[in-house]
């Protein structure tokens, strides 16, 4: 068990190294340097050279890289060119928004997927099952931005059930109950959209798992000794199928991160994905670099988490 976890950690180290190297090369190739905006055409070229020397931009690339990684570890990514604040402060504000949105999405995702998957497996080949299969096919095939736009159009603009932009009503006083209710109210539609898109894997997994479990010996034994059918499903089969589903949480995180760029842009929700797009538009390279690094790190962490939970739940994939 521990061997698997340690080994999995060791694999992550070179991945992190290559990721940081890749992002460093990307950052070096982005136009501009830390002084963009400070230099005017009147600045003396000698002064520019002096500044470059002072900030170590003339050092060999590996020294620059080492310094960059050292700073990145301390959360030091320089200053944002557009917002004139530290990149870490800027991302910190947005990260909380994205975190709450992702949390609500994950709750909705499991709340939709688990009952649908279990019931579809239980009533295999019924009209309900066929409906679930159709639903999971559509949510698999539909692109994120198309679903988000259509939902926003109908529920936001036509029916006006939900707000169409922002993360909170500006009239609410921060800290009041109404403030938090307004926050959740703003998150419902974007969270629902990305939850629907993420359900396919869990529904399909649970459905086949329950269908397979029906013919298992332990289920037959339980039925034979007189356990009611409902209880067999809720206690025996459900528990057995649910643990592996918990392991999907890591992949869910990875998937949500990728989708957050579309979702946050379309719903104008001030999270990290929207910050990324607006930084690209304003060519705010220090913010871009930090965000790509953060997303890459979180994605690696997500797959690490999934693998560890998997190895706890399923002893077969452990390495001896």
């Amino acid at each position, binding site marked *: 068990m521990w061997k698997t976890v340690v080994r999995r950690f060791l694999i992550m180290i070179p*991945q992190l190294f*290559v*990721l940081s190297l*890749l992002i460093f090369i*990307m950052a070096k*190739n*982005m*136009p501009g340097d830390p002084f963009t905006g400070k230099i005017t055409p009147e600045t003396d070229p000698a002064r520019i050279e002096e500044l470059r020397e002072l900030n170590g931009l003339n050092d060999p690339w590996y020294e620059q890289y080492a310094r960059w990684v050292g700073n990145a570890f301390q959360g030091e990514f320089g200053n944002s060119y557009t917002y004139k604040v530290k990149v870490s402060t800027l991302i910190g504000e947005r990260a909380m928004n994205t975190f709450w949105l992702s949390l609500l999405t994950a709750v909705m995702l499991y709340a939709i997927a688990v009952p649908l998957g279990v019931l579809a497996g239980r009533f295999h080949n019924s009209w309900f099952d066929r409906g679930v299969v159709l639903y999971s*096919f*559509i949510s*698999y*095939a*539909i*692109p*994120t*931005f*198309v679903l988000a*736009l*259509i939902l*926003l*159009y109908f529920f936001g*603009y036509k029916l006006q059930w939900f707000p*169409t*932009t922002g993360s909170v009503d500006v009239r609410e006083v921060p800290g009041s109950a109404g403030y938090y209710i307004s926050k959740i109210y703003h998150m419902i539609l974007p969270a629902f959209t990305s939850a629907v898109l993420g359900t396919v894997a869990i529904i399909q997994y649970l459905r086949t798992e329950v269908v397979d479990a029906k013919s298992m010996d332990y289920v037959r034994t339980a039925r034979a000794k007189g356990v009611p059918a409902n209880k067999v499903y809720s206690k025996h089969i459900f528990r057995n199928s649910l643990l592996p589903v918990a392991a999907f949480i890591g992949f869910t995180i*990875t998937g949500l*991160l*990728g989708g957050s*760029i*579309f979702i946050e*842009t*379309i719903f104008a929700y001030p999270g990290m994905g929207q910050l*990324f*797009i607006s930084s*690209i*538009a304003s*060519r705010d390279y220090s913010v*871009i670099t930090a*965000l*790509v690094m953060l*997303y*890459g790190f979180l*994605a*690696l962490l997500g*797959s690490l988490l999934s693998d560890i939970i998997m190895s706890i739940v399923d002893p077969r994939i452990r390495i001896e």
Partner: protein
Amino acid sequence: MVKEKDNKKEQEIISAPPTGMQVVWREFIKDRVAMFSLIIMVLAISGVFIASLFFDPAEVMKVSLRSKYAPPSSLHWLGADIGGSDVFGQLIIGAKNSLLIAIAITLITGTVGIFIGLACGYFGGWIDNMFMRIIDFFITLPSLMIIIVFITIVPKYTVFTFILIVSLFGWTSIARLVRSKALSESRRDYVNASKTLGTNDFVIIFKEVMPNISSILIVEATLSFAGNIGIETGLTFLGFGLPPSTPSLGTLVAYANNPLVMSTYWWVWLPAALFILILMLSINYVGQALRRAADAKQRLG
């Protein structure tokens, strides 16, 4: 005598295993929805290419302020956009571009993925190890963000650079799948027999192993074609896809970023969004039917 011969013939026909196309055909006959999707897919794709012959891009993109945001009428079937350009014409030209680019990306990622997958699966050893590490790494990358960054920092940005950048991140899933199939196929007796006879590795890979996994290749190509339409239109929607000179379905959908267009002038963006939806649903469904046909255990027909 004659009757007996007939009988024999009949028996032969019945016992002959159905060949590739027959299996696929049976699957589509059995599954009405798949047949319906196939018809929709063929109609949509051929319709776009045929209709695009009747539209001159310069004529369509012509700005005429008098018909700014004109609602659908007999002159403009789907109305007009902010510049008064015909939306239906843009839809057709955009769809043609989107389809062509998705085809190009599918061809590139497919070829690279198949080559690498076959090499990994057949040779195994260090080649396999090396590529699998690379693929594992690619899969955990936040590829959407990195594609966007690449697109922003590339100096001379054209349609070809776009295709290349997207392809750079698209080959891994095909390579992984082909590898797993080629791996099990390469351990079969016929491959060993061929090796013993001294057949060249390349001949074994391309003339013996590849035809045996061709059904999977076709399925994957169909599904990744649908996926690539989604990626291209999605990136263009965000503003990091095709250059403005080449309209795509995503360009039309991107008008929805303006709340006024989204709520009031729905004819500008909604048809394009629905067209993407129809393409994705039908192509994916056809792909899944093909996948069932390729796997004897899942066939309906």
